[in-house]
């Protein structure tokens, strides 16, 4: 595949991701949360009764679409490779802490972009935090910090997360009694399921083909000056901004922004954690979900960590609300940063890239 083609597909993915997310909000998803991996996982955790907040309990078809779209494209393009075994427990806990960081900011890196594009100035501190976190991660990489190398695994390992996604789809349609579908709050707000699953499949497929990743784009820019994925990130922001303007969802300002708070220091620090941990495990929450569809077992383990993180973020109040970050959320962010520092101490290889 030529460089130009990759460049184009990253931008197309970004345009679809940004514009599609805002359209999903326009069609019924919660405001500024057309696509938000941390919100979707919190909803999924509630639907599976991993927490008791009915307002946050729903199986988002977009999430299933991401996995299946990625799986289908990976299979079609022969990029379905079953790999794993790279520090799985560390990845599980970093996935958990990434979602706790997102919960303290109230949104994943994609939602951060959507909030910025909708004129939410409270997302500026978070953006600075994410960039700082990724920058710190690239310094770690240069210093030789890297998790263990992944190896090939038997094929069935790579199919399990996709089967899990299909099972969720079955639950979505059959609505068994043990799955909770909230009738109020964010759970009651959703775009038509046909649109939601189509958006998930298309964006998931393109994201697999392009490798688009919010933190990965920034990381590549810092690490090697490579702009392909970063242009995809910019395309996400620009398309979300344009569609927000066109659909009347652009409301610039610091106050009165949906699902936000004014504790900028903790927004910054929470996203430092998200940026740093995502760089260590090679991908933002969205990228982790996409990688599960292409047979990456480490990403699947990370995704289960993210699901547990989403459950305890709500169940144990390790998050922020419109009133600001909860005490538990602040502690979780600090614990996550401490874990990243411990990893840096333990996983430094002397032969790492140095400048």
């Amino acid at each position, binding site marked *: 595949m030529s460089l130009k083609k990759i460049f184009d597909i990253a931008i197309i993915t970004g345009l679809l991701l940004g514009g599609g997310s805002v359209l999903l909000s326009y069609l019924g998803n*919660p*405001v*500024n*949360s057309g696509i*938000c991996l941390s*919100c979707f996982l*919190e909803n999924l955790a509630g639907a599976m009764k991993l927490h008791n907040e009915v*307002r*946050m309990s729903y199986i988002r078809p977009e999430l299933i679409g991401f996995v299946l779209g990625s799986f289908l494209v990976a299979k079609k393009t022969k990029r379905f490779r079953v790999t794993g075994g790279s520090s799985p427990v560390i990845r599980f806990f970093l996935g958990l802490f990434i979602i706790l960081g997102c919960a303290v900011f*109230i*949104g994943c890196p994609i939602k951060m972009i959507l909030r910025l594009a909708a004129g939410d100035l409270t997302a500026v501190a978070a953006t600075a935090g994410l960039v700082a976190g990724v920058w710190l991660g690239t310094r770690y990489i240069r210093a030789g910090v890297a998790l263990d190398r992944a190896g090939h695994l038997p094929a069935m390992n790579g199919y399990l997360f996709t089967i899990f996604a299909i099972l969720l789809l079955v639950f979505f349609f*059959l609505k*068994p*009694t043990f799955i909770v*579908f909230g*009738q*109020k*709050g*964010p759970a*009651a*707000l959703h775009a038509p399921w046909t649109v939601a699953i189509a958006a998930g499949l298309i964006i998931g497929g393109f994201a697999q083909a392009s490798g688009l990743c919010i933190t990965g784009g920034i990381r590549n820019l810092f690490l090697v000056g490579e702009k392909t994925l970063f242009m995809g990130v910019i395309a996400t922001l620009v398309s979300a901004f344009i569609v927000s303007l066109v659909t009347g969802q652009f409301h610039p300002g610091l*106050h*009165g*922004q*949906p*699902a*936000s*708070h*004014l504790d900028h220091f903790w927004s910054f620090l929470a996203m430092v954690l998200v940026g740093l941990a995502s760089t260590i495990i090679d991908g933002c929450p969205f990228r982790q979900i996409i990688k599960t569809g292409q047979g990456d077992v480490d990403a699947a383990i990370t995704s289960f960590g993210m699901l547990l993180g989403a459950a305890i973020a709500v169940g144990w109040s390790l998050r922020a*609300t*419109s*009133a600001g970050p909860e005490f538990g959320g602040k502690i979780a962010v600090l614990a996550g940063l401490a874990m990243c520092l411990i990893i840096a101490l333990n996983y430094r290889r002397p032969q790492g890239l140095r400048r």
Partner: protein
Amino acid sequence: MDWFQRIVLTALVVVIGATGWMLIDHELHAKSSAAHTTDPAMKLQQHYAELQRKNARIFAKIIALKESGKYDAAMNRLKTLMAKHGDNAYGYVLLARLEYAQGSLTNALHAYRKAVELDPDYVDKTTPLFIGTEIMDVITKSRGKINRERKLKPGDPKIRAAVNDIYYLQRRIAGGCE
């Protein structure tokens, strides 16, 4: 396929078949017993209707006193009742309305905030309890006065708290995934 694979495959088919049969049977029974009750949306509507009836019963005298303009009497009675029903969000909605009617904007805003914190349904457009429009109306009417007082008394904790309450309520009414 050797004898080992044949045995394992047969066992697998039996286990999957049994699991599927048990699941379908369980769900059919669960669905039929659930059908005797009501669907979740209907159940929720019944819950809200019951809640509104209960609140109307508990706070009937206070509502009557407020409507006849006897704000002090209504306030005294409400405070007594709220000592007993402290976790009742509707009590705070009534308190906010009484405070607002008496011109106490900062107290009204704080009472609305308490109501929303206790029951987010009051700012949830998908529920019949939604009073977001009423709260935004109070915010719009209060903002000018509170901004003036903020300039006159910079650093006044009560005014600062009222501004925080306004921002909080605006954010909650704006919606989002929370």
